[in-house]
Structure formats: C-alpha cells, structure tokens
C-alpha cells in the first residue's frame, strides 16, 4: 500500500477487519474482506450448492474439497499451484483436496504492485506525493487485474495467507462450538480439525457453519514447520491435464455450432485494408464468409485450415500510412534519439562531471534487436455473442481491461460480457494485449454463432509486440586501484511498457501508442541499467524513440537490454583494470550481500577459472523485484555458430513457496534468455519481418541446451517471482564467455545463431 498524505487518508480511519465483515445471502454465506478494502467490494464468486464462500480466495465444499480462487494468469510459471499452496498451508488442507478456480473480474483482485511499477512515474508527475495513494485507489477501483513482471506471489502472498488463516479460525470456532471446547485449542492438519486431544472432524462437516462465527482482530498465523505445505515440492495442480492432452487452451474450446476463423491485419504500422479478391475463397471447401473491418479481414470456415486457405486466396492488400518499418530505420531512429530533445537524466548519484573531466574515459556502444515472444500458442480466442450478452474464452494477463475492451467493441455494458480466463500457452507477456478477444467477439456477433479465432504463426510474427530494441553508450572512469570512479549509461530505447498501456488501457492503435510514448523518458525503459554495484558517481540517461514497431511486455521487460549493457560493460572494465571479473564485481557489492552470495555460489558451483583466456567461461549478475541472481556459462564458437555447453545459475528469490516450481521458473527464464541471446529476432524490411518461419528464428532446441544447474539460495525474505531476473542474465554471461574464446567483445544482440 502506498503511503498516503494525511488529508487523503481520513476515509480509511476506523475501518478494520471486523467492520469489513460483509454478510452475504444464501449459498454465498458470510463474506470477509480485510486490509483496507472499502465496504462495497464484495467477493463476486459463484458458489455451488454444496460450496461455502469463505472469502475472495477460498471456497470449501461439504465433502471437504478446498477451492482456491486464483486471480493470476497461468502461463507456465506455476501460479495456479503457488497461490493455492499458500492458502492450503495456512488453512491446514490436505493437498489432494485442493482445486483451483479462476477469479472473476473484481477490485478485490487488483494487482496494485504491478500497477505501481508500471504507472508510478506518470502518476507521481500528475499528483506529486499523492500519486502513490491515488494510483493504489485507481488500480483497485478499476479492478486492474494484471499478471506480469514477476509480481504474482509478491502481490498475493499475504492475501492468500490471510485467506487461509481466516478460514482456519472460522472452522476451528465451528468445531469448537460442537465440541464445547475453546477454539484456540483446535487446529487443522491434513484437512482434519483436532481439538488438541483425540477428537477429529473433517473440515467439510463444519464448512457451512464456519461462516457464522466472528473473526478475531488479529489472525493467528500457523507456527512451526511440522506438517507444513509451504516450502514443499508439491505436485503442480495443472500437471494431470497437461500430460494427457485434455487441458483446454483457447483453441481447444468446442461449442455447439462453432466455426473457425483466421485473420490478416496487414503489415506493421498504420495499415488500412485496401482491397481483396472476394470471389476466390468460394472455391475452398467449408468456407463460409469474409468479414472486413478497417484494419483487418477475417475468413470464417468450418475448419481453421479452410479459413486460413480462404485468406491466402483472397490475398488482401493494405495501404500503409507512414514510412514502412525496416531494420535501418529502427537503427536510425535509435541513433537519432541520442540527439533528440526528449532525453533526460533519470538517475544521478554523486557528481560525474569532475570525475570525467580531463580524464581517460573508457567507452563502448551496445545494441539489442527487438525480441520476439514466439510463444508456442499463437494469439487465440473463442467467443459466443448472443442477444443476452457475450462470452469469451481467452488467456489474458489483463482480464479487466480485456473485458472492458470487448464490451465497448460490441456496444455492450461490461456486465454483459463474461470472460473465461484460460491458461496461456507460454505468452511471456504477449497476452497482455487483448486484440484476439475483441476480434473473436466481433466475428461471433457478425456470424450470429460461436467463432474461434486463431492467428496463424505468420500473423503472430508480423503482429507480435516484441521487447524493445535499444542502443547504449556506456562510459566509465577507472581509478588507479581498479575501482570504478564514474559510470554513465546513455540508453536510447522505446518504452515497451508505456506503449502497452497506451494500447490496452487507453485503446490507442499500436502505431499511435508507439508515437505517443516517444515523447517522454521513463525509468521503465532503463530498468536493469541501474547499478547494483557501489560506484560513487554514476548517472543514467534515457532517450525515448519511436522505431516504428509496436512493442510489448516480455520476461524482464527493459531488464533484457539493461542487464546486457551493464553486465557486459562491467566485464570490459574488469578486463581493462586487470582484475578478475568475479572479484571485480564482488568488491563493489559490500552493501549487497544477497547478490554477492549469488555470484560466489554460481562461480563455486560452476568451477569458475577466473575468466582466463580460452576458458569459455562468462559470468553475470542481476537483481530486481526482490530477486537476486547470478549465472555462469560455458560457451564456445563452433564454426559460425555458438554452442552453450553449460549454464549454472544461483538464485535468491526469498523463502520459496515451492522450491521445484521456483527452479522451473529459473529454467524458464534461462531458456528464454538463451533464445534472446542467440535468436528470437528478425530483420525488418518494407514493413514486414524478413521471415516468419518458426524454424528460422534461432530458437534453442533440446540438442542446443547443455547442462543446466540451478542452485536456490536459502533465504528468509518474502518470496518473489524470478523469471524476470533469470531471463536477462544469460545474454551478458554468454557474451562475456565468448570474449575469453575469441578475444573480441560482442556488443550486439542477438549474438549469432546456435551451432
């Protein structure tokens, strides 16, 4: 919660947990809310006939099944296991009885943490010190449900814990009343309530009674480690449906009378549909209809292949307003940004000027290409629009915004749109945009029957919202003892997060959002450039740009380029200072023991040889969002290609809820980072990517991935997500490793394809 200025905070006064108890009718039972939520936000959960709603995160049914309500989007990161595990741990449930349900859109599930990270600088500019508080209120009131930036566990850990603790107290009170013992003597283990002696009762037996009791002012949290679920490698709840093909992604929904659609949206930029061959598709078996809008055309057929084939034959032509994007133009726009007027110093510590004056400055330039998501599941949504309203099945990282956009497109009220949040087939930030959901709904409205829209892979590559391309001019002054006395990073980059907000919240067209974001410098575009190292004088400048690409969320966001610039340049300085790269870093981490520990652990486990010539070893460190990580890689040049034979990662992400899922998250980040380092990008020409074939994107396959070791550092800090720290670590570590192999610094990404 943001700190509020006194005069604004008065509305909160006197609201405590007790006064927030909200009575519900019928099956809803007694509903509780806690924290600082206004009285009028009630859980809007549906309850089955045998289910009792305990609070916004938890239902329990008569047979003892524990249903945890998860507001976050499962993309593979494990959140539909992690949040239930926190609730079940505090409740005392048997893990085999735990089920998951996606949360409906509600202010109770607003992700104020990500909202703050995303919008803080804008709001602070507008409202000054009150910005933080106002932003919190705004995010909550507009039910800003968001998944991304590794915030899910950090955001909902306490709420899930409270949810479990509150239910445990109520169940214990209900059981205690039946047994006529003090409730404080009761406890719940493995889904059984005990009276502290011999009596046992299943939680389902008193679930409906439980909600008739009052909550204490302070929840007693579970003490001790015996029989705890938290910290265990419990099996993921989504595993069974994902190993037998039964899990329904958006393209797996089947509805009576449903038809299939494919879409073309033209080249990148401000493209308007100009014409197409209306008659050619008629020859396709199963073809039903072409549906045109200003900016796209879709074909509908009885199967998806027929729909897509119909579009091939219709061969739509688009008119592009403005200059078509190409690689030279992207490069030029970034270069020009350095001399543009919108650049600004965003971080400054100490005084660089006297340090740099008349001194020998070491300088290097770096750059990265836009990084494609290439999630295995292309954008997809299934919609059924009838006279009564609309239902949309889709994976979305911003369900509230998606629902509102769909409602507006259909001319319906938000209440008339039901969004069924599904798991995403990877996403990696791509599902922050909701275009496919809106398009599917419009198609269903026009067809008068359910429609499933699936983008082709080519369409996905053309219309991806990749991570930002960026350039950096790094400069530093080394002191006589090899310490860094001054450090300056100038970064030219479009802000992908600002653009994304422009599209998904302000409903700007991709081209407009890109243009509008180019006028303002922001820390969001230089995240990860801020030094974790103790340097007396340093500064970071951001030069915003519009490169002609619409950019979006990605694992790590700006950290992907930020960590590359910083960790490669640190390595260069270590080499010039003739100090071994690991000690060079650690000597500047006196005030950051967690990151230092990651570095020394990765080095020790990896058999770090000091980065000597020919070792093929490289190291990198990064921190953010409460997570710390270091990676050591072994890499070699093999002909024209790069061979990464070993990755050793040491990660401190707090007290892990489920260590094996945390390990999976690290692996997820590392492999995404490996792809980003060696491929996952394309050249652009004439408004289009030069290629759109999945096999030519330089993505690692099993044979390209050598030994991967992940060490989790034990910690008592609050748990956080880690994909966003792991992904940015890989590219600089590989570039640093290849320097020991070739003697040449590789200063641009991608580094080159896999051998």
């Amino acid at each position: 919660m943001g700190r509020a200025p006194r005069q604004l905070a008065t509305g909160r006064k006197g609201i405590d947990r007790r006064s927030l108890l909200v009575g519900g009718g019928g099956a809803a039972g007694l509903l509780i809310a806690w924290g600082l939520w206004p009285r009028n936000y009630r859980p809007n959960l549906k309850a089955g006939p045998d289910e009792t709603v305990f609070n916004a995160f938890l239902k329990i049914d008569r047979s003892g099944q524990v249903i945890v309500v998860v507001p976050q989007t499962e993309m593979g990161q494990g959140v539909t296991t992690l949040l239930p595990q926190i609730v079940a741990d505090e409740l005392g449930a048997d893990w085999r009885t735990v089920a998951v349900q996606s949360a409906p859109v509600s202010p109770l599930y607003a992700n104020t943490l990500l909202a703050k990270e995303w919008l803080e600088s804008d709001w602070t500019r507008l409202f000054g010190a009150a910005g933080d508080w106002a932003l919190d209120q705004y995010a909550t009131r507009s039910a800003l449900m968001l998944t991304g930036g590794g915030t899910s566990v950090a955001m909902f850990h306490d709420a899930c814990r409270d949810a479990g603790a509150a239910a445990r107290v109520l169940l214990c009170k209900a059981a205690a009343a039946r047994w006529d013992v003090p409730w404080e003597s009761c406890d719940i283990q493995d889904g059984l309530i005990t009276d502290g002696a011999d009596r046992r009762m299943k939680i389902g037996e008193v679930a409906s009674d439980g909600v008739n009791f009052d909550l204490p002012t302070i929840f007693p949290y579970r003490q001790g480690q015996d029989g705890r679920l938290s910290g265990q490698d419990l099996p993921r709840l989504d595993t069974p449906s994902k190993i037998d093909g039964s899990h329904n992604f958006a393209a797996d929904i089947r509805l009576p009378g449903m038809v299939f659609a494919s879409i073309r949206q033209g080249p990148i930029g401000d493209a308007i549909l100009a014409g197409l061959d209306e008659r050619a598709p008629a020859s396709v078996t199963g073809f039903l209809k072409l549906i045109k809008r200003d900016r796209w055309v879709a074909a509908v057929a009885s199967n998806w292949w027929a729909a897509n084939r119909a579009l091939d034959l219709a061969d739509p032509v688009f008119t592009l307003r403005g200059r078509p994007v190409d690689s030279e133009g992207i490069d030029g726009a970034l270069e020009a940004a350095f001399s543009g007027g919108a650049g600004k110093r965003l971080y400054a510590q100490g005084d660089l000027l006297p340090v740099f004056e008349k001194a020998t400055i070491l300088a290097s330039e770096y750059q990265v290409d836009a990084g494609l998501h290439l999630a295995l599941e292309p954008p997809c949504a299934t919609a059924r629009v009838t006279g009564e309203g609309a239902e949309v099945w889709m994976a979305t990282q911003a369900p509230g915004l998606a629902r509102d956009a769909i409602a507006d497109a259909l001319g319906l009220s938000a209440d008339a749109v039901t969004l069924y949040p599904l798991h995403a087939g990877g996403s990696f930030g791509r599902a922050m945009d909701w275009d496919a959901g809106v398009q599917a709904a419009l198609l269903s409205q026009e067809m008068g029957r359910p429609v499933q829209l699936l983008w082709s892979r080519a369409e996905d590559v053309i219309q991806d919202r990749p991570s930002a391309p960026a350039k950096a001019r790094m400069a530093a002054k080394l002191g006589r003892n090899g310490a860094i006395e001054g450090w300056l990073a100038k970064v030219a980059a479009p802000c992908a997060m600002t653009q994304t907000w422009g599209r998904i919240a302000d409903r700007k067209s991709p081209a407009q959002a890109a243009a509008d974001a180019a006028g303002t410098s922001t820390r969001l575009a230089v995240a990860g450039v801020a030094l974790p190292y103790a340097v007396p004088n340093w500064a970071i400048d951001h030069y915003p740009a519009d490169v002609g690409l619409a950019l979006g969320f990605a694992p790590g966001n700006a950290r992907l380029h930020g960590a590359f610039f910083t960790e490669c340049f640190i390595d260069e300085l270590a080499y010039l200072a003739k100090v071994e790269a690991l000690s060079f870093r650690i000597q500047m981490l006196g005030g950051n023991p967690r990151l230092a520990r990651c570095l020394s652990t990765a080095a020790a486990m990896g058999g770090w040889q000091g980065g000597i010539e020919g070792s093929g070893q490289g190291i990198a460190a990064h921190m953010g969002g409460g997570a710390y990580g270091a990676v050591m890689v072994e890499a070699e040049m093999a002909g024209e290609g790069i061979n990464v034979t070993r990755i050793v990662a040491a990660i401190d992400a707090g007290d892990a809820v489920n260590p094996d899922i945390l390990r999976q998250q690290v692996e997820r980040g590392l492999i995404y980072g490996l792809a980003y380092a060696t491929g996952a990008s394309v050249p652009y020409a004439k408004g289009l990517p030069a290629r759109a074939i999945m096999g030519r994107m330089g993505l690692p396959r099993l044979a390209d991935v050598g030994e991967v070791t992940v060490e989790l550092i034990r910690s008592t800090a609050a748990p956080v997500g880690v994909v966003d720290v792991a992904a940015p670590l890989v590219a600089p570590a590989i570039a640093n490793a290849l320097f020991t192999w070739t003697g040449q610094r590789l200063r641009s990404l991608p580094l080159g394809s896999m051998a």
Partner: protein
Amino acid sequence: MTKFTVNDRPVHYRMDPDTPLLWALRDASNLTGTKYGCGTGDCGACTVDIDGEAVRSCQVTIGKTEGRFVTTIEALSPDRGHPLQQAFAAENVSQCGYCIPGVIMAASVLLRRTSDPSDEQIDAAITNICRCGIYPRLRGAIQRAGRIMRGEEQIAAAPPPGITPEEAARTVPALGHPGAQPKR
C-alpha cells in the same frame, strides 16, 4: 480418399483431401490434444504417431493418410498411465503445457524403438520447440520413462482421470461423504 484409422476407430473425413491431418484431428474429430504451433513442421506441437512413426501432422494431408493408423495423445493411454506421462509428472516437466503432447508423442515413438536411449538419441528424436524451458528436465524424464518400461522402476505420480468422490473419500481422510451431486 480420406479414410483411415484414428485411435483405433475407422474414420472417413468429408473434408478437402489437401487438409492437413492436424486440422481434421482438431476441428473435425475434436482431438484437441494435438496442437497448432507453426504450421511449417518446425515446432513439433502437432506430432502424432502414424504407423509407428512420429509425424508432424501439419505436414501430412488427410489424402496421404489414407489407410494408415494414427494415434494421438488422447489414445496414448486411457488413464495417464503411460510411462512417459508418469515420468513427466514425477519430474515436474510441464510448464505451460502447450508443447507437451507433441513432445510425449515423439518420445513415445523413440522409446518403442529403444527403451534405453542415449542423450544423443534423445536429442535426435526430440526436435520439438519448447519456449518455457522444459529442456533441462527432458532427457532425464525420458530416460526415467525408459526405466519404467524396462520394469526397473515404478512410479505413480499423476492420478488417473475420473476418480469418483466415493473413491477419493476412501483414500483421503479429509474428504467426507459427498452430498447429492448435481448431474453433469
């Protein structure tokens, strides 16, 4: 002609014979476990077993499948009991899950040929693309499935589908007798 056998059942698809098998399986048979990822044969999400070979189903038409035997993830086992499925659960392999059916189908063909594959044989057989990063766990999981097939190991990591509430209540003390269940 577009008549062949899918998961041990004879099927005649009334579709354009040029339709890739993937779309007949998904959109006509509703066998949606087989996924579309690229349409160019690169990602392997659509891998199925045709006459004992691992085939990218987006690359073969239903016309060319005439008379052949197609097996999809849905028929690999009736109860998630295939050694690969159990090993994938035990090793906590799947993340988003989108690539998993294709990977498991490709691996099942490999293990039928050799239940003790080397790392190199696995790398050669599993050319599927996974973006989540299941790779670090994949070789170990496939080799573990091989050990299960050879009878050297037994695991029961993932429960079978369709457990009744009564059955569940017999195993899990916390579960009580369910009330009258609404018909599904």
